[in-house]
């Protein structure tokens, strides 16, 4: 059982401060959807509105098509996993997991049986009678998931559940979460400020900034076709160059920057202050100048990172550019101090407005 969620022009004010600003998005049943954004951008507030702890100031939230206005958290088909998990430390693990069933009047034997099934689902056998304090961070994580799954929610809401874990465990739990979502088919709404996490796990990602939804797309499009500078810079690295845009045609344009004029993609609708964004991995170094989008540079720093080589270079007027070269043996690793040309493909670079906030 899973349900879709519609946020229809949802706003949330705290006093005169607008924490969530006209958010519109339709999340499909069974989808793994992530809200991605920096700290304080309103992610938790969105989740609290969906679960019913905070009422939207404006707009409507629908779960499975049903308007949720006036529904208490305990009446909604959602289960929230808190940023700090909020397990009950005075109950053994199995009672934690079965708490939702206890509330629903399920008898003890059934509760116990169900708790053990769920523990098996999250790969935590033999922990039913332990106390919360006896578990590791990753195990607590799984208990929180099992506790939420026990009430068979149509929607699971997860608030940065992996942020407290170390890197290795985090990567492991990513795969685990994704697998649990696939197995149960429940709609997952996942919140994170870690772009890698959002891109790796989600069907679609909504990138937020200052209470506004900047872009909703699948992870590939978020990374390859960001709609504005905020999304481009929040998700991955960029070389950013300001300048005047000329010759707009067929989704392409020229931009005259202080280090030269380049051609790049430009959405027809794009307006406002525009800048050129090129990702370091799309920069190439070559001995001779290219036909277009090429600039002479002096390499200042060549850092060998293992699977790639990070190259910092300065142009003749002192602008720093960064390139990342794959360490696949196709080209020799250049030396620091070398004079070369840095070039990029027009199809892999974009001219973007700053962010949706600037336009509105």
């Amino acid at each position, binding site marked *: 059982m899973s349900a879709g969620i519609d946020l229809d022009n949802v706003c949330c004010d705290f006093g005169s401060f607008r924490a969530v600003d006209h958010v519109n998005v339709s999340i499909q049943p069974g989808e793994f959807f992530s809200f991605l954004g920096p700290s304080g951008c309103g992610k938790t507030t969105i989740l609290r509105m969906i*679960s*019913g*702890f905070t009422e939207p100031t404006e707009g409507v939230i629908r779960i499975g098509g049903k308007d949720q206005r006036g529904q*208490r*958290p*305990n009446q909604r088909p*959602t*289960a*929230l996993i*808190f*940023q*700090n998990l*909020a*397990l*009950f430390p*005075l*109950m053994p693990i199995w009672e934690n997991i079965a*708490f*939702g069933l*206890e*509330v*629903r009047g399920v008898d003890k034997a059934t509760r116990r049986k169900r708790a053990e099934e769920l523990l098996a689902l999250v790969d935590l056998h033999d922990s039913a009678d332990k106390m919360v304090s006896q578990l590791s961070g990753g195990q607590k994580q799984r208990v929180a998931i099992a*506790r*939420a799954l026990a*009430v068979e929610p149509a929607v699971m809401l997860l608030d940065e559940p992996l942020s407290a874990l170390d890197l290795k465990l985090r990567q492991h739990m990513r795969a685990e979460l994704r697998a649990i979502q696939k197995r149960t088919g429940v709609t997952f709404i996942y919140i994170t400020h870690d772009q890698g996490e959002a891109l790796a796990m989600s069907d679609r990602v909504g990138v937020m900034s200052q209470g506004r939804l900047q872009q909703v797309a699948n992870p590939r499009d978020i990374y390859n076709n960001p709609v504005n500078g905020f999304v481009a810079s929040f998700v991955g690295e960029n070389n950013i160059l300001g300048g005047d845009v000329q010759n707009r045609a067929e989704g392409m344009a020229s931009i005259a920057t202080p280090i030269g004029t380049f051609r790049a993609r430009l959405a027809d609708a794009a307006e406002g202050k525009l800048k050129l964004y090129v990702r370091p991995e799309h920069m190439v170094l070559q001995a001779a100048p290219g036909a277009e989008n090429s600039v002479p540079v002096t390499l200042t720093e060549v850092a060998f990172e293992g699977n790639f080589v990070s190259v910092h270079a300065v142009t003749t007027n002192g602008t720093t550019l960064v390139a990342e070269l794959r360490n696949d043996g196709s080209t020799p690793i250049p030396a620091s101090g070398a004079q070369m040309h840095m070039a990029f493909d027009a199809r892999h670079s974009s001219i973007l407005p700053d962010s949706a906030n600037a336009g509105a």
Partner: protein
Amino acid sequence: MDDLLRRYGRGLTWGFVGLTFFWLVILVILPDFKLLESSFRPYLPVVDVGGPKDTYSINNYLRIFGGEVPMSIFGFEVLISPRVKVLLYTLWYSGVVTLVTFLLAYPLAYYLAKIVSPKSLPTLFLLLFVPLWVSEVLRSFAWWIILALKGPLNAVLIALGIIDTEIRWISGYSPVIIGLVYTYVLFMVFPLYNAMQSLDSNQIEAADDLGAPWWRIHWRVILPHSKPGIASGAVMVFMLSAGSLLVPAIMGSTTSGWFTQTIQGIMLEEQDWNTGAAFAFMLLTICTLVVTLAMWVFKVKLSDIAK
């Protein structure tokens, strides 16, 4: 200790320690030992003190048995000594006081810890403390006036049409209970507030989110978390109530003897400090036993209370 030395220097630190030591040993521990010692010696005219009749015995303690009066305990009629009867009533009604303070303090502490906005908290605390600025004697007399047969409480209740004829509030143990509850309720509120305040509000929300109604959230999450606070509050209220002299003396009626009044009578009227001391230590010991028993029944550890 090192920390204190560093912060306050040698002179001040040893000054503090010395004064604390003086207070604890000279003013508290030694007099208590003296009383404990004399509780095992008979009450004698001055000339006989230290003489052949001045020997250790538990006779003073046995004086609690003597005489027989009827008493009904859970419906059973028994004959027991009047002093034991007063002691049992003291323990029983101290327990009642503890229960009533808990029932009053729990919602108040919850309100203060989890509902009130932190901004108005100082004002509310101030309001709670204001009554403490008035002396206990005056507060007890005030209650005595409020509860009087022709007093304001009955007048208000009659004016509101809640009752037709005056209720005799001051009879039996009820005024003592009211007075003790009023005097000691804050000793329950603050430990409870402390305990509840340390509860992560997300746990309450998590229970809510999992579908729990409010009463189950209290029963399964908030109450268990508050147990150490309840325990320390209950111990304080119980001990203070059982040991209170002023409230039973002012608010009591002829039928509401409190064991502290018995002790006072022996010490002041009979001038028999030896027996008075014996009874006082008996009260202390029995209260401690009751508390220990209650802690065992409710599975509270001493270390929980110390928190």
